[in-house]
């Protein structure tokens, strides 16, 4: 048995005893685990401003809690969060925050989520359950290295001197050194703002190693990584042969940790060069033949990107990373199939509102053991980070059960709906339509986003980035099929189109690189790179106005 295998065994044992066994046992009686978790959170925070205002000290049951504490969103909690940001103690949480996790850049304005020691334990608990299952399923994972992307946890300081940034970077930085040696990327990489440089450095580190597992939230990042591998193959191989990195690529103030350990490895360079010569391109599947698993988001809009992975990564199993956000971890995937995960019943307390009741004042708040199969619900989090009955604006669907605990899958953000004439078009319908057009008619594109375009009548404009020009006939074919597929997935869309209250959609082909530039802008604005989501349906009427449209196609009004 190698040292790495022995260490993996010990790590598995620790993860099992610290987290996985408790989670597993709790799936028999989720209602008990959830009640215990809720009472633990409210009693710990009874003597806080929010706890006193809502009588946390006398809460003895879920019903008490639901009767005394209103459902909330960030706007409602933000006055309390702002007091914490200014350094006032015991406002939402009895514990002082270690960090404020920022969620800016994914949707709307920046939000500050308090990360307390207890919250960090809740968050890590879910992570440990996930890791335990991965290590159990891949017995030789630590024979190689793991590529884990993370974002900057120190974007700045609040006026009270508390750092704010991404929780992923914080966790990476605090990783014990015995484990960190298995991570192929240095912590310092999460601070690199230049997206192109970040991808180059990621590849420089990772191509020198035997990568067994890749963990990154967004599969579109994996496609970009693979494309950059192809584009920079020769320079990367040259750097590996010589050691270090071409100094011209690095800014003068680059942190030394970014290039630490980048030794010369001519043998590895030879192997990569042989792959490049043999195939004519350097692909992840050749560079990392021992890659055992990719873990990334698979729900919501992700299937369109996932279908691009096999061309670069081969038939490596892809496991969902889990339904999670800075606000908490909602579900932990335990298998590779689909995008579902078991509700994280030992991490936080969850409530669910049936999809059709969200805006109903008499809406019913359900707990996880009350969820019905194949039904969709909005999720409300209560965490040790000071979020109480917090509407995260996510819609999930129940796809299976592990014992008595539901397995849920992220469907879409609640606001991913567009309705000009009552068609209530959802982002998941746009995703389904795009997937159908791609799979049935063989179109290839990098990114696409639909948004409303006002006119008489109004219509949907689809911004689309393609790698090579389609030409007029192919473009018209694409937008015709997209129009048909939207009508298939949304009856109201079909009705509004037939009655001409909605005009035919417009296809706007944008210059290659437009979406990479968009990603770069979002990162510059403070969004964690790995979490930048490209929407398939944008409610923002200005979306795409800064893209350079290289060709535009509109169907005739009577085209359908």
């Amino acid at each position: 048995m190698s040292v790495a295998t022995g260490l993996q065994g010990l790590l598995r044992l620790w993860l099992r005893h610290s987290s996985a066994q408790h989670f597993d046992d709790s799936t028999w009686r989720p209602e008990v685990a959830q009640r215990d978790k809720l009472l633990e959170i409210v009693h710990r925070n009874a003597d806080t401003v929010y706890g006193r205002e809502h009588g946390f000290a006398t809460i003895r049951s879920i019903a008490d809690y639901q009767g005394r504490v209103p459902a909330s969103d960030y706007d409602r909690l933000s006055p309390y969060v702002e007091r914490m940001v200014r350094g006032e103690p015991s406002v939402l949480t009895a514990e002082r925050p270690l960090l404020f996790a920022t969620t800016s850049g994914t949707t709307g304005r920046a939000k500050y989520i308090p990360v307390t020691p207890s919250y960090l334990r809740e968050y890590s608990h879910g992570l440990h359950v996930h890791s335990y299952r991965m290590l159990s399923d891949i017995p030789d994972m630590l024979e190689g290295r793991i590529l884990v992307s993370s974002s900057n946890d120190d974007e700045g300081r609040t006026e009270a001197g508390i750092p704010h940034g991404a929780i992923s970077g914080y966790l990476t930085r605090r990783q014990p050194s015995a484990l960190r040696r298995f991570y192929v990327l240095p912590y310092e990489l999460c601070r690199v703002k230049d997206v192109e440089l970040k991808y180059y450095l990621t590849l420089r580190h990772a191509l020198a190693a035997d990568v067994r597992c890749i963990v990154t939230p967004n599969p579109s990042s994996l496609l970009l990584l693979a494309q950059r591998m192809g584009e920079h193959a020769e320079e990367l191989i040259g750097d590996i042969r010589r050691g270090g990195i071409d100094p011209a690529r690095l800014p003068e103030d680059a942190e030394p940790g970014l290039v630490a350990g980048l030794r010369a490895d001519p043998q590895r360079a030879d192997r990569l060069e042989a792959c490049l010569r043999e195939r004519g391109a350097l692909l992840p599947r050749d560079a990392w033949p021992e890659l055992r698993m990719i873990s990334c988001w698979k729900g919501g809009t992700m299937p369109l990107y996932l279908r691009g992975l096999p061309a670069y990564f081969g038939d490596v199993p892809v496991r969902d990373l889990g339904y999670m956000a800075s606000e908490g971890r909602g579900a932990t995937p335990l298998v590779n199939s689909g995008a579902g995960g078991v509700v994280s019943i030992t991490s936080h307390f969850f409530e669910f509102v049936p999809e059709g009741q969200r805006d109903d004042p008499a809406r019913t708040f359900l707990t996880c053991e009350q969820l019905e199969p194949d039904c969709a619900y909005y999720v409300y989090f209560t965490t040790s980070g000071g979020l109480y009955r917090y509407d995260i604006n996510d819609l999930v669907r129940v796809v299976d059960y592990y014992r008595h605990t539901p397995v849920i899958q992220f469907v879409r953000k609640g606001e991913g709906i567009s309705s000009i004439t009552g068609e209530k078009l959802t982002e998941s319908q746009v995703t389904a339509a795009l997937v159908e057009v791609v799979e049935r008619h063989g179109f290839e594109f990098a990114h696409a986003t639909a948004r409303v375009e006002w006119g008489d009548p109004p219509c949907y404009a689809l911004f689309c980035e393609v790698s090579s020009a389609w030409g007029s006939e192919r473009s018209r074919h694409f937008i015709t099929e997209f129009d048909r597929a939207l009508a298939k997935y949304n009856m109201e869309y079909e009705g509004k189109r037939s009655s001409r209250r909605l005009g035919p959609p417009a296809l706007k082909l944008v210059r290659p690189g437009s979406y990479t530039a968009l990603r770069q802008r979002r990162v510059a604005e403070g969004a964690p790179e790995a979490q930048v989501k490209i929407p398939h349906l944008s409610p923002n009427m200005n979306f795409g106005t800064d893209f350079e449209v290289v060709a535009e196609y509109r169907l005739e009004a009577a085209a359908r």
Partner: protein
Amino acid sequence: MSDDAVREVASVLGEVPMFRHLTSGQRIRLAGRMTTRRYQTGQVIVRQGDTSVSCYTVLRGRVRITREFDWGDRALIVDEGRAFFFGEMGLIDDMTRSATVVALEPTECALLSRWDLHRELRGDPEIALALIPVLNARIRELEARIR
């Protein structure tokens, strides 16, 4: 589940071809690892393409199994009732659900998770040996139906 409920589930397992050859004790132990769930008429029990964590045995009621093909056609595979066992393939190959199952009338199922099944298989290899020919037959049967 109460002891009576476990015995009832074990009794239905005795009618399932996959578990028919197990001893009464083996079936009782398997039933003890199961949970039960009720479904209303028209309710989807599992949907094609979804994550597959548990396999199901119909205790009472009737279900319809349909499959949608890539080209958009939908095929009715079969209607089944008590002692129909489904969802086991995904537990073995870790693939998504291959068909959608809907309750045709009020239905109750017993669910067995992949890890609880695995625990039983590890603990009692005779169960695994008993399952192999049945699984093989199931694959051939499904292939024949699709053709």
